[in-house]
């Protein structure tokens, strides 16, 4: 099962390598990882996507929590949450495909952020599956380069 885990940690040198070292040392996998400062500059938020059965995810969250520099670990999938990923795609756009590419981008509410005579650079934001979907659709037209941010996630505010 895929899990999105959000980790608050001290924004100090070496902290990220404690997290990645934990994953490599214990044979846990990381599908994506993104990290940046929070509103509080001394604290960073790291979002990682990993896979494993229940007992592995339990170990992952406990082991993360055990790291001294880790403040909070949340398996965001435990509650309602929104997740987003951004992708930049450079796709071939020649005379006969330009219109088609623009149509696809429009359907996915993407933006063209760079134009050259033979290609577009496209920005799309959405869930990881939406990002994957546009990649799959543009692939036959000719993708030259892809850069993905990895997933970030946030729990939904309670409705009550």
């Amino acid at each position, binding site marked *: 099962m895929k899990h999105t885990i959000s980790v608050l940690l001290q924004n100090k*040198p*070496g902290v990220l390598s404690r997290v990645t070292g934990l994953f490599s040392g214990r044979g846990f996998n990381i599908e994506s990882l993104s990290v940046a400062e929070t509103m509080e500059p001394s604290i960073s938020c790291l979002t990682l996507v990993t896979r494993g059965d229940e007992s592995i995810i339990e*170990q992952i969250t406990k082991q993360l929590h055990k790291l*001294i520099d*880790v403040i909070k670990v949340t398996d965001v999938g435990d509650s309602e949450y929104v997740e987003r990923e951004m992708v930049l795609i450079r796709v071939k756009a020649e005379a006969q495909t330009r219109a088609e590419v623009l149509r696809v981008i429009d359907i996915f509410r993407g933006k063209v952020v760079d134009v050259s005579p033979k290609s577009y650079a496209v920005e799309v934001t959405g869930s990881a599956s939406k990002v994957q979907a546009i990649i799959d659709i543009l692939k036959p037209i000719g993708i030259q380069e892809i850069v993905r941010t990895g997933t970030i996630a946030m729990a939904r505010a309670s409705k009550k």
Partner: protein
Amino acid sequence: MDKISGSQAIIRCLQEEGVKIIFGFPGGAVIDLYDALMDSDITNVLVRHEQGAVHAADGLARVTGEVGVALLTSGPGATNGVTAIATAYMDSIPMVILTGQVPTPLIGNDAFQEVDIVGITRPCTKHNYLVKDSKDLVPTLREAFHIARTGRPGPVLVDLPKDVVAKMIDFPEKKPIRMQNYQPNYDPHPGQIEKACKKIIKAKNPVLYVGGGVILSNANEELTELARKLNIPVTMTLMGLGGFPGSDPLSMGMLGMHGSYAANMAVANSDLLIAVGARFDDRVTGRLDAFAPHATIIHIDIDPTSISKNVKVDIPIVADCKQALIAMNTWFNTASDFNRERVAASHEPWRETINEWNSKHPMGYHSEGEIIKPQFVIEKLDELTGGDAIITTEVGQNQMWAAQFYKFNKPRCLATSGGLGTMGYGLPAAIGAKMAFPDKIVIDVAGDGSIQMNIQELATARQYNCPVKVAILNNNYLGMVRQWQELFYNKRYAGTVMEVTPDFVKLAEAYGAVGLRATKTSEVEAVIKEALATDNTVIMDFTIAREECVFPMVPAGKATTEMLLV
């Protein structure tokens, strides 16, 4: 207030933390620290190899329960300490390791004797620090001691660049430590305690499975109270030996790969396993699906990651072992709907079954006349020290025989590398233990292979008048590996024959220590007596039955009931 140097501040911190002895080896990056140390009342023990310094600090920590401290220089000094740091980490030993580092402007430049020791030791320390600003020195050191000794203990490394410790600073006042991100939980959940106690009352075949956590949290008395109150048989891991008196009729001795027949059979047939401060290590469980297959499992541990890591636990209790056991004892003392005598008596048939297993296959060996049996040597050591010595061990068969045949009746009397299995641990650890308790007999039970890994520490023992005794069970083999080759590799003794071994008697003499040798069974007692009567470091070289094996043995990957027996 007058300013003091960073290194003086560090030494003052050590004093504040109650440190009396530190073990170390100097170099360019730590001259300032050594200089400040010279003006303090802390004993500075100069070892002969940095691994020895860290093992010695570890030995001191294991026998006293205090934080052991080692001081190493940058680069090779620090890397030489890594094996010993990992040794302490695997066994959750509270330690602070101070390493020198090149000056901050040079960090990252491949400077002379620069190594990223914080990076290297990240996976084998509980936590580590590189102090880049002198004003952080004292708070960091205080935090390091706090982390080392609280929660599940462990080694903490503090890397100290030369310019940072040279600066003049104000010594900040001591304040209670509060860490938002680190708050180990000591108190058990009352609901879980009640659930556990109710299960215990109903159990027919309960077993207490005791690990090193009981020793680390000084919970041996509470554990003993619980076991005796309810008449529950006890088995211990290597790290747990001494957590319950080995001579008590309720003790089944050690379990696992070289555990007793009765202990392994009891676990396999138990209906309730109460794990206290143990971590279901593979050397204990053997094949996982066959470990305690019929048992409900209660697990008390301060580290949540230990719970349900290898074996699914039914009633987890995340707490300090001592606090949890106190809560359980209190529950049993005050619960109204429970009759202590009746519950205790209801375990009698179970104890009889265990006694039958024990008489069928007791822990034993076959005597062979004048050929010295290693088990006999350990029995004699136990007898002649009244079971009251501190035993350290090397690793291999020697370690297992010590664990099987010495009756550890008190906690903190065995210092042995359990998790990492580090050959070369025993002699420096013995020195650390002896420095902490000069009036105690301290014996390193050694193998001829392991002892050579840190034999240089004989000089340290001599320099500090530290009359530790070393009992070498000399089989002229890397015996434990040879045993595996004998049993599972068609007796192909690849790389396990020690074709050249020093004359240990002469070697002892070369260091100004005393060397004694026994080659016949009838000489063993006299040699031990003489060693104990000698006020000097002594090596006893026992020429033992060369191809003796450690039994029982659960072959790797087998169920613990599939034991090879004597």
